[in-house]
Structure formats: C-alpha cells, structure tokens
C-alpha cells in the first residue's frame, strides 16, 4: 500500500548485501501491493463535477485538476468555503482495490536429492505465484476549512490494515490575494509534474516511478527519493490560469519518517519550475525542470553499538535534477517524460547514510549490532571509492479512447554512469557497501516496462470504479540470485500480471 516502506526496504543496504534477502524483499514488496493516490469523489460531490473534469483518468490529474489543486482545492468561484456546503457534507473518500495477480521472480533455492538437502541456495529457480489479494485502504479527507485555508489528511493502511499517515498537511493559499503566494506545511508529495501518488499503475514495480526512487546498489542514501512523501514546508506560486508554476520546498532529510530519528540537523530542498504553452488543437504542452539537493547524516552516535535515533551528524550531499515534459497530441494521446541526473556523495556510495534502517514509520529496526555502516570518527573511505552518479528517464504514454477508457504504457531506464566502487577499488576487497572489488559499469541498471488499461464502466460525480488490467516487467543488472557456478550475482527479473477492481467512494 505504501511505497515508502517498500522502496526503503527494497533499497536497504543490508538487504542488498544478501541477494536472497533482496529477492525475498522484492517479492514482499510486490505482495504488499502498491501505493495509492489522491482521487476524491469527495471533491466531485462538493462541486458537482464528474471525475473526468479533473482527472484524465482518476487519480491522474488533467490541467483543470492541477489548477484546482494548485488553488488549494478551490474552484475560485466564491463558493469554496465550507459555509456553502450542505452541513451534512463530509469530505471523505475511501479507496481500496481487490486484485488477482501473478508474480514471478528468479531466486536462489536449496536443492534436494532422495529427500535430503544437498545444497544451500545451490540453484536458481523462478518462483511464480498467483492468487487473489488486496491493496491497502486509503482514507482521503481534504478540502477547505475556510476560503483559502485548506487541509489534506490521508491515513493509509497496508493490506493487513496497519495504518500510517501518508499525507498530512495544512495549506494557506492566495495569500494577499495573489496566486503566487501559497504555503503548504506537513507531509506531502513533492511538486512532481508526473505525480507518482496519482499514477494509474498498480503493480509493485510499475506502480512507482523507478526514476523517483533509484538508489545505486549498496548506496546508503535513502533520502533522495522524490517519489516518497516528504516532511517539510512548500512554497508554490502559479499564474491565474496555471500556465506558469514554480515551487520551492524545505524538507527534513528523513524521507518522510516521523519522530526525528534521522540526522540531527539535515535538510533538503526541492525546486520546480514549469511553463505551459498553448498549442492550438494539440492542447496545452508543458515543459519544466526540477532540482532536489540535500544533505544527510553519515555518522550516528551509538549506545552499546546501536545507533541513537536523531543523533546523525557528518552531513554529506546528494542531488537529483532533470526535466519534465508533458505533450498532448489532441484530446486522445499524450506523452510524459521525466529525466534525471543523480549523484550521491562517495560516503553514501559506500553504504553510509541510513544506519537507522527504519521500517518507514518512525520505529528503528536496527536494534542490535551489527547495524549498517556508520561513519565513526576516524573512518576513511576505501581506496577507489567515488561518488556514484547515474542518468534515468521515464516515458509514460497514454491513449485516452474516452474519459472512461484509457490505455497506458511506461518505459523507464536507469543507467549508472559512475559506480561507487571505481576501477581503483582493491580487487577482492569487500567494502562497507557489501560490494567486492570494482563494480561492473552496469551494476544496478534498471529497465522497467509496464502496459495496462483502465475501464470505468460509469462516470458520475459520486464515485469511481475502474476495471484495471496491467502487466509489468522489471529488470535489474546484478541484483538477482547468485549463480551456483560462479557465485556472482545474476540479473534480477520480476514480472507481474494484475487484474483488479479499483474503486473509491
């Protein structure tokens, strides 16, 4: 249900040190369903608008929906304040998705002969499981408290019903009557033009954008994940018609984790700018850019060998920057592109950065030594360690047959351009990041393909229901099971076929 947990687990340096654990976690990640987004029949009911007015296909926003959101969930027609609503109106929407899915992943298995175990992890097998399943449950509630003052709270559960707060924020909009002055405070999705929380995909690896979560193999920096909701303060400004938009956020480098368990004093900033152009019959085209620059701790003081939450110092830097493009080719077809160039400090590349290894909700999971690498005073970087960097791109194409039927395809690729363990790394030496010797230049590269469609049998202002069908293949270099012959990690391939009833009310 929530990707923060998933991606954090998925990219935990601990787990990546053990390919088997990694593979199991991938399976777990996928089984736990995918993250959810904001689709609010509550708003549709309030304004008497159909889903299709704001959503290209819910929960994905169109330009009108984007403007509504940027205005603080207001139509700006002088009827936004709650006083205009029927007193019995309550802005709550729930969303859940019963699914059937089939998962397939390659993995190390033990071998047996004559009823006796003859080897441990001595073979590679493909584990395919299929069956009926559930997503978690989302309770969206949001709206105006008064004209230009709004809120959004989203308690969200995993498929077992364990809840956390996915989004919690208060907003002040149109300060001094200007659309250029809006402030958001709390835990929220970054101002990504291609919103991950509103993705139309549901599978474990297709339901997130790899470009928003990519972390090099063994890297300890979990804080640069643009796809995760973050804690902080966001300024947004936009023109009246929303053609020009800018934003700047100040965030805790905690990847959205509560309870100040991370660095003692580490912050990140996220900046965006985008401009839309009027292209006649083709529709509105939008171009933009973003930059995510931050600092995160690499040294946590310990007590009895166990890191003390909130004690992190020794900040090191990281950055993610790229372009957005949203291109409409008439009312039926559109293409979204997000690029990324990312870089982590060499210390992160060696696995420092997340000694707390949280479970995502504020509880520290590393309660006993040995914990992930910690940059104790006097620690030196291994010879040949360098700052890992990479490039990525996401293409998402949508064919809107009608507001009720949409076809989707995504292709993503993430390519390392510089590995943490450079060519000068000592051959045969296993670094703190768990990787031995210089890394292959393609280690950790990802290719991700997803196709699907969503069919909404009806379209009203009351509720949403979609028949959803999707297929994803995720491929990563060198993070799969160890070869029984060479002992080296093979490539990881995960596929998932999903059918579901996605509904919200």
């Amino acid at each position: 249900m929530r990707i923060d947990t998933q991606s954090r687990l998925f990219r935990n340096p601990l787990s990546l040190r053990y390919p088997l654990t990694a593979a199991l976690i991938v399976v777990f990640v996928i089984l736990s369903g995918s993250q959810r987004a904001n689709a609010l029949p509550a708003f549709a009911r309030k304004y008497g608008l159909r889903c299709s007015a704001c959503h290209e296909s819910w929960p994905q926003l169109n330009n009108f929906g984007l403007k509504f959101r940027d205005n603080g969930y207001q139509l700006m027609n002088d009827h936004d304040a709650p006083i205009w609503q029927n007193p019995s109106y309550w802005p709550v929407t729930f969303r859940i998705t019963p699914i059937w899915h089939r998962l397939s992943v390659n993995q190390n298995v033990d071998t047996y002969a004559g009823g006796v175990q003859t080897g441990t992890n001595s073979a590679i097998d493909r584990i395919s499981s299929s069956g009926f399943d559930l997503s978690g449950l989302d309770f969206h509630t949001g709206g105006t408290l008064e004209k230009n003052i709004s809120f959004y709270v989203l308690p969200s559960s995993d498929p077992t019903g364990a809840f956390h707060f996915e989004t919690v924020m208060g907003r002040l909009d149109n300060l001094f009557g200007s659309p250029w002055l809006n402030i958001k405070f709390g835990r929220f999705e970054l101002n990504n033009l291609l919103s991950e929380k509103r993705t139309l995909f549901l599978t474990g690896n297709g339901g997130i954008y790899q470009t928003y979560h990519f972390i090099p193999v063994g890297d300890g920096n979990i804080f640069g994940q643009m796809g995760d909701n973050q804690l902080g303060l966001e300024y947004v400004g936009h023109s009246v018609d929303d053609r020009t938009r800018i934003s700047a956020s100040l965030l805790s480098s905690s990847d959205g984790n509560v309870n100040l368990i991370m660095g003692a004093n580490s912050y990140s900033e996220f900046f965006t700018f985008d401009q839309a152009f009027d292209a006649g019959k083709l529709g509105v085209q939008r171009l933009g850019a973003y930059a995510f620059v931050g600092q995160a701790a690499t040294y946590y003081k310990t007590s009895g060998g166990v890191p003390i939450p909130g004690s992190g110092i020794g900040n090191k830097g990281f950055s993610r920057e790229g372009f957005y493009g949203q291109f409409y080719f008439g009312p039926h077809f559109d293409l979204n592109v997000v690029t990324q160039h990312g870089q982590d400090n060499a210390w992160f590349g060696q696995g420092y950065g997340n000694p707390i290894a949280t479970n995502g909700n504020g509880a520290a999971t590393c309660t006993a030594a040995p914990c992930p690498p910690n940059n104790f005073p006097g620690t030196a970087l291994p010879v040949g360690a360098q700052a890992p960097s990479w490039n990525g791109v996401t293409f998402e194409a949508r064919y809107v047959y009608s507001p009720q039927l949409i076809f989707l395809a995504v292709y993503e690729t993430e390519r390392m351009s510089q590995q943490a363990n450079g060519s000068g790394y000592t051959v045969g030496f296993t670094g703190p990041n768990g990787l031995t010797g210089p890394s292959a230049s393609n280690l950790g590269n990802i290719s991700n393909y997803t196709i699907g469609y969503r069919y909404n049998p009806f379209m009203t202002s009351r509720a949403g229901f979609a028949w959803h069908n999707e297929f994803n293949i995720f491929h990563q270099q060198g993070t799969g099971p160890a070869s029984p012959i060479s002992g080296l990690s093979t490539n990881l391939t995960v596929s998932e076929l999903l059918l579901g009833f996605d509904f919200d009310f």
Partner: protein
Amino acid sequence: MRRSLIRWSLFLLAAAVFSLPLVSWAQLTKADLDSRLKMESHVGNITGHAKDGAADYHRYCEGCHGVRGDGNGEVAQWFDPPNFPKPRDFQLGIFKCRSTPTGTLPTDQDLYDAISRGFDRSGMPIWNTFTKQERVDLVAWVKHFSPRFVSEKPGTAIQIPPEPEVTAERVKAGREVFARVQCWKCHGVTGEANGPSASTLQDDLGRPIAAFNFTEGSRPKCGDTDQDIYRIFMTGLDGTPMPSFADNIKPDEAWDLVFYLRSLMREPSKEKAIAQQLGLKPVDPNAPAPTQ
C-alpha cells in the same frame, strides 16, 4: 358551468400553444443535433468547429449541462437556486453575458469570454486551462444545441464610449441615476441586494434568483472591468430579472453610474474614496421621483 368550461378550453388551448416549443425542445433528437454539427464559431482569427468541441464537452461539461445541452446533466438536480443557479439550458439560446442588446444572441466572443471567465456564485467553473482553439471549438459546440443560432444572427455589440475621468461630480451624478432608474428596488439602497423586490425575484424559468450584492467583494458574473459593468446594465442579463437600461440611461450617464457602483463595492477604489470624502448617503427610496 358553461363559463368555466369555456375558460378551461381557452386555458388548455393557450397551454397547448405555449408548450409547443417546449415539446419540440424536449423532443429534440440526436439527429436534429447532428444536423447542426457544421456549426462554426469565430473568435479573433481562430475558427472553431462544433465537432471538435464534442470530446471536451463530453468530458468537462456534460455532467452539468447535459448530453443534449438542456441544462439537465446528472448533477443539475443538486443545484439549488438562488445560491446555486441551475446550469444553463443551451437549447433556449438565452445567455446572461452579452455585449449585444437584450433579446439578441451573444457573439462568439461573448460565449468565449463566459467560458474562460466562469461564473462566480455558481457551479460554473473557470475554464481558462484550455487552449484558445479548444475554447473556440467549445463555443461552436455550445451553439449547436440551439436552433436560434441557425435562424438568427448574433446582435451587434453595443458601442461603449471611452471611459471618462472619475470626478466627484460624476460619482454624485451616478448616485442620481441609481435613484432615478431604481436599481435599489432589487439591489438595495446600499447595494446589499436587499431592496424591496429582492426576496421575490425569479428568473424566466420561475427559479428563485438573488440580485447582485455589491458589498460582498465577489466578482460580477459577466466581468469585473469598468467596461464589463457598463455592458451589464446596458445589455441586461437575459433570462433574469436584471433588465437592460439601454433605453433609460444615456451613455454618458452610464459611466457616472459605473463610478457610483464602484463606490458601493467592497474593494478600495478611487470612487470609494471620493464617496467617503463627499459623505455620500445611500439613496432615499421615498424621495419623489426626480423630474428629467
């Protein structure tokens, strides 16, 4: 007995005659509509085609204005006038915001502006996220619902003389116009929409409607510039009790009235400052009608 029979027959006859057009609207078939699909619209140098607006109408407008443009979309039943006016019935071809004289069809530009501007104090959103072309196409699609756009030409936009300088004399003169043509009957002497007729106002379809409250700080539906306000009372909002005063107010006086209306509005303005300085009192509803 016989008298009442005759009266009944007459009544029924009249009812039948008057409901004829209604019947024809109600029975407007898809085929009728399709035959109007060639409808065009022209705004600036952009030409719109009804057919090209259909998809956007289906996605964005239909829920309120209805598949047939009759204002009977799925959610229309939940809109309770006067606070939430019902969506416009496009088949009637009657529009509030026009640059053209009362009773005539609006220009394409008028409809384009209405769609781009949205209607405050109603469910009608501001549709400025579309490209210009998309909006012009929507205008053609909106027009194709009404037979009026086939049989009639739009009216000619009224002439608005250049805006004069705001002076204390003009603000004072505007107050006199406000009193003379009795705007206050509906809008109240202070502009608070509480005139003696305010509570009983109905639109042409018999639905309750509120007069505009100048003091609340909300935008007029048909635009907020001085020219827009001039146009509003010189063309009237067709389909509502808000009449056209083109026959009662001379162009120069009309500007005076615009200035006086500004002084009633909540937003700070030069006019408001002048009125305060002059200590202008609200008009007296019991004063004898001034002679002209």
